[in-house]
């Protein structure tokens, strides 16, 4: 009898111990640059958000924020959601998210400066709060940061265990004149991001292969 009880208890303990404490969800924070002429690319940003909505699963988190003159603010988050564990509820949330992004794209206005660093810090904070197992910051921008004189961003930032993916990094007129500027800009960002402890740095300009965004 004791033996049987032991076996039952062991089985129950084994089952209880089976629970995987590691988080399998993923969180994506997308920064959308609306400064200057880049604001014209907003439709592409919408397509990327739609792709993310179609790909992310229940339990995953998504936030979309705009990059403005100063982006280190919760007010810049256009929409954010952690999708419900029930697929039907998650679908409802995704529809609401899409509506929010649609209305944003219709009303988006350009900004004078581009504070990508502030957006990165804000994004890192959001992602760390979600507790997701896999964290990604998407930067939909030309990666040309322009700050006003009073904005301070020249300090080390923390992007530990966060993947940073620059999407649709278009070439500026000056880049066309001297491609080294474009290369140098990307290299500089890569150095900065890697110095901040990011898990990965990636540039995706071909929007036909959006699956690479979430793939390691």
């Amino acid at each position, binding site marked *: 009898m004791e033996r049987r009880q032991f076996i039952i208890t062991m089985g129950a303990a084994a089952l209880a111990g*089976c629970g*995987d404490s590691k988080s399998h969800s993923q969180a994506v924070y997308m920064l959308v640059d609306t400064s200057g002429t880049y604001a014209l690319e907003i439709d592409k940003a919408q397509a990327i958000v739609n792709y993310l909505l179609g790909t992310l699963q229940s*339990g995953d988190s998504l936030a979309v924020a705009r990059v403005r003159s100063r982006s280190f603010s919760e007010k810049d988050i256009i929409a954010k959601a952690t999708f419900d564990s*029930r697929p039907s509820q998650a679908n409802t949330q995704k529809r609401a998210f*899409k509506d929010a992004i649609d209305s944003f794209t219709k009303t988006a206005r350009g900004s004078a400066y581009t504070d990508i660093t502030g957006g990165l810090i804000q994004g890192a904070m959001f992602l760390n709060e979600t507790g997701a197992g896999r964290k990604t910051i998407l930067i939909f921008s030309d990666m040309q940061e322009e700050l006003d004189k009073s904005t301070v961003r020249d300090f080390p930032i923390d992007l530990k265990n966060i993947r940073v993916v620059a999407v649709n990094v278009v070439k500026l007129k000056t880049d066309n004149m001297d491609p080294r500027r474009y290369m140098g800009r990307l290299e500089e960002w890569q150095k900065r991001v890697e110095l901040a402890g990011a898990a990965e740095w990636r540039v995706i300009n071909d929007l036909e292969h959006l699956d690479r965004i979430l793939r390691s």
Partner: protein
Amino acid sequence: MQTQIWMIVPGNAALSALIWFVIAMPFLYAARRPVHEFVRAFGHLAHAPLRLLARSLYAAAQSMRYRNREVLLAHGREETEQHIAREFERVAVLVKRDLEGYPALQQRLLAEITRVEDDYKKCGEVPPPPPEWVEAVEAVAKVKNGNELVQRVLDEINRAIKEIHERMLKEYRGAYEERHKILNGFMPFWRSLQQTLAQADRRVTSLNDRAGQIDAQMKKFEGIVNKTPDAEHALTVSAATQLAITTLVLAIATGGALINYKLIALPMSEMVGAGDYLTSSLRTSDVAALVIIFVEATMGLFLMETLRITHLFPRIHGLSDTVRRRLMFAAATLLITLAGIEAALALMRDMLIADKAALLQSLATVQQHAPAADGWMTKIPTAGQMLLGFILPFALAFVAVPLESFIASARTVLGSALVALTQGAALGMRLLATLVKSLTKLLITFYDIVIVLPLLVERLIRRGPKAAAFGVDDETLVPRRH
């Protein structure tokens, strides 16, 4: 430089080696006996355990074989007993059904035969009564005188005879006609008799067939009881065939279970959540779906047990009929409930997929036209899924039957395979032991070849030049006792 230190003749490795060999030879000769002893002891060290291991493996194989045989025969005996009992039950049913009506059949046959006999008697030819006037004619014929009176009497008699003859002939024909009619009336009775007898013949033949089958089973049973090699072989072959068949059936059932799993895995995420993981790649919802399928299979197993179709749990068979029936109803109720849940989950799956498709369509950059709703046509897959969700649990319930056969036959086949494997290992050990022994002899001989020069010198000293010329060794002359 370090590697060339051993060279006595610098730059000439072969010559250096030869010189070293010549120097070493007396030492090798001196160490001959200890080296021989060492090699023999070393060989013995490996040979003896290998032989022991081989013997143990053979013994283990024999023991396993004996146990397998006992289990196989016991299982075969039980199975044959059940077959024979079933055959007797069938015979009893046949006897009860067919031979129970035999008294009535016999009575009917007797009645028909009696009737036919009666009718036959009626058909008997009735000879016409002898005419009473024959004696009168004889008396008149004896009158000698040609009397006119006599002549008239004779004429009168002649007329009367003709008249009577015609009447008799008519009556005779009438009687014949009557008999023919009676005989004609025999036909249905004959047919009825023929049918009754054919029916009786069929029943007896059926019984005869059953008796033949019982004879065959009894022969098999006798073989098993007497533990004949033929019976054992037949049972082993039968087990291998059973294993192949049941494996195939179980593979099909596994396919069914997979389809079942696919049907309920997605909707289960709606119930238990899609974000929980048990292991790095195993979702809780997937496990929940699997658990439901396993519970269904278990309920099916209990149902089959309580119905006494399978015999996996002797405890269930030991229960009283009332308890067993209660268990059966409980298992059946749970199975039906689970089947209903599965049907509902299948419906939910369809709804979730449709919802997801609608969402993806709304997210698509290029908007696609939704397929036109086609009334009942679009509902067919949904209905099909629901039906499948309801039916599959019951289909899974029947897995218990092949599972039982699989377990029984796998035990026999795996047991035989294990015996063969053990015997093979024993043979391998034996071969290895022989190899070690031969290798020992080979090493000793090789050592002697290496120190052949000192040995020749020894021989010359011991026996003189004559014996040495024949190349006879001491050790070859005296048989070794090792």
